[in-house]
């Protein structure tokens, strides 16, 4: 017996919310992406805990897929950030407000 299942979930929740807070509160584009990464990671933790609880490997498989998706998403996201930094010269999310209205 390691820990009660709920505790692991609670840990995952706290990590997730911290990632959300980072994404919401920071202005730097890179920090926002980092917040997204934290959130993905926390979700993966929850999946692994669930996999152990139900004694099946499906949760772990899913975590694998999360890794893959996160990797490609980060790649494209960073490419976008680099591109838009070259176009506008700003890394501040507040400067990208042409969709205002």
């Amino acid at each position: 017996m390691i820990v009660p299942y709920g505790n692991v979930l609670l840990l995952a929740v706290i990590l997730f919310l911290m990632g959300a807070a980072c994404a919401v509160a920071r202005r730097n584009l890179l920090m926002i992406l980092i917040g997204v990464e934290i959130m993905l990671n926390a979700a993966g933790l929850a999946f692994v805990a669930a996999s152990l609880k139900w004694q099946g490997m499906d949760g772990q498989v899913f975590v694998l897929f999360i890794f893959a998706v996160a990797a490609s998403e980060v790649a494209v996201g960073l490419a976008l950030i680099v591109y838009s930094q070259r176009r506008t010269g700003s890394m501040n999310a507040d400067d990208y407000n042409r969709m205002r209205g």
Partner: protein
Amino acid sequence: MTLYAVIFYVLAIVALASTLLAILQRQVVHAIVYLILSFLATALLFYLLGAPFLAVLEVIIYAGAIMVLFLFVVMTVRAEPVRGTRRETFRQWLPAIVLGIVSLCVGGILIAQVPGSKIGLTVGMATPTAFGRYLFKSYWLPVEIVSFLLLIGLVGALYLGRQETKPAEEKGENHP
């Protein structure tokens, strides 16, 4: 309080602390470093929770590739961190903190309600062999799709990241 529980709580504290420090940093590089530490702790947690293969993958992919990628971009971009006043920072963080605390309380209540959350997790281990077999037996299609996704990501990143040799007007997509 078994040994496993102790290890769990220590790792949990490390992960929490390092994540917290990561999100509060001014400098992006510092944040990334703290985050690497957090990912390492998470990888050990994975090992504890019976997923050694994933633990290794976490270190290699997440902490290794993704965070390094971040660092590369930080180096390429070379933007100066913007210094805001204390009041502005507080106004930025306030909604996130409030909402976070509310969600935490609600989430905690929810978790506490579920009967299954009191059950202790038994020790188990998914060996890489067994994991691999299981993956390619039942989930071969998602694997193929994910590989396709990675290819697309690759192509996309290449296209977006190329240096501009042509005039700017000819690029019509993805204006910020």
